[in-house]
């Protein structure tokens, strides 16, 4: 075999290796680019799941002491959050933001939207929720229940909570660490959108999502809040 043939074969091998390395680097990069481009083109503000996944059908008790299952709300958008009435900041802020979103919806959309707050605190009775939720909106729903049922609901939605140690001598005076997501469940009972806590002040954009999920024309939304 001549040295020339050796050299050609070696060049081909090097070219093949370079091509393979380029492909290994560029293909995942392209995948990332397309995925980012696809995400930015999404009409949804929250993290939208295009796959229809039935939301966990919880069975809890509302602020009037009546049983309420998620399936009772079928046909409506449900905006669901978990927390507790003694929460110093996250829950009042989230519910305040949800109230602002609700007020921005057209009357037709408001008829089809239920905002539900599930307390993960066993100290929160229906009566406590009945006092608490109207501070934000008189149409909001407060939910509580057997700790096992509340725990099952929280786990099913990926919500985390944990009783924090009491700081003072009064052991009943404790806080609860909890996750801060808000979940949008569509009228067919599918868990569709996840909102992070830091997204919640974007009232207009969340209202757009809600009306889009209801199949209403977003442009017709009336802004009733300045």
């Amino acid at each position, binding site marked *: 075999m001549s040295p020339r043939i050796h050299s050609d074969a070696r060049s081909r091998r090097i070219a093949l290796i370079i091509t393979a390395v380029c492909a290994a680097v560029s293909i*995942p990069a392209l995948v990332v680019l397309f995925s980012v481009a696809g995400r930015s083109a999404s009409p949804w503000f929250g993290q939208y799941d295009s796959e229809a996944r039935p939301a966990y059908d919880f069975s809890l008790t509302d602020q009037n002491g009546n049983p309420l299952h998620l399936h009772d709300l079928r046909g409506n958008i449900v905006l669901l959050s978990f927390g507790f009435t003694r929460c*110093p*900041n996250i829950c009042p802020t989230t519910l305040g933001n949800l109230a602002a979103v609700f007020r921005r919806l057209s009357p037709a959309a408001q008829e089809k939207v239920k905002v539900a707050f599930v307390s993960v605190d066993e100290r929160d009775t229906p009566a406590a929720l009945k006092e608490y939720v109207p501070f934000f909106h008189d149409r909001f729903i407060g939910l509580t229940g057997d700790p096992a049922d509340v725990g099952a609901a929280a786990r099913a939605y990926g919500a985390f909570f944990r009783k924090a140690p009491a700081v003072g001598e009064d052991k009943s005076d404790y806080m609860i660490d909890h996750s801060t997501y808000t979940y949008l469940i569509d009228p067919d009972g599918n868990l569709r959108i996840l909102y992070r806590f830091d997204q919640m002040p974007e009232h207009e954009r969340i209202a757009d999502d809600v009306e889009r999920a209801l199949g209403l024309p977003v442009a017709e939304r009336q802004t009733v809040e300045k």
Partner: protein
Amino acid sequence: MSGWARPAFLCLLLSACNEEPLAYIPAPLTGREIYQAKCAACHQPDGAGIPGICPPLSTSPRLDGNTDDVVRIILLGMKGSIVREGQTYSGIMPSWKFDLGDAQIAAVANEVHARWKPGSPEVTEEQVRRIREETSKQKLFPTEAELR
């Protein structure tokens, strides 16, 4: 994403995360920044509030009184009915005692006073520390009557 692409994607994502500057973690320091981050959504950037929903700060009688009142409300929050300029407000203001340090509470209280009640005495970090201590056993969200 196909099986082959996922590890590569994760790899790129993780390496990107390592390069992420820490600046995305909000660290408001000035009174104005804290106001924007914690107060403006309800009280509005101009302090006018939202009629019937969030009371105005710009015309609040609280700013006429002792600055301790404002600090106490920032620390404990507030709930229940209040009437301002003929409007009734019934809601909950969050407590910021766990989120904001003494200097930050002093800064945002001074920002509120400087904008809507200029000439008010300065709120100091020591003053906030004292009120935090005094109110440490108080329940969050007092009503207006309980604040008196």
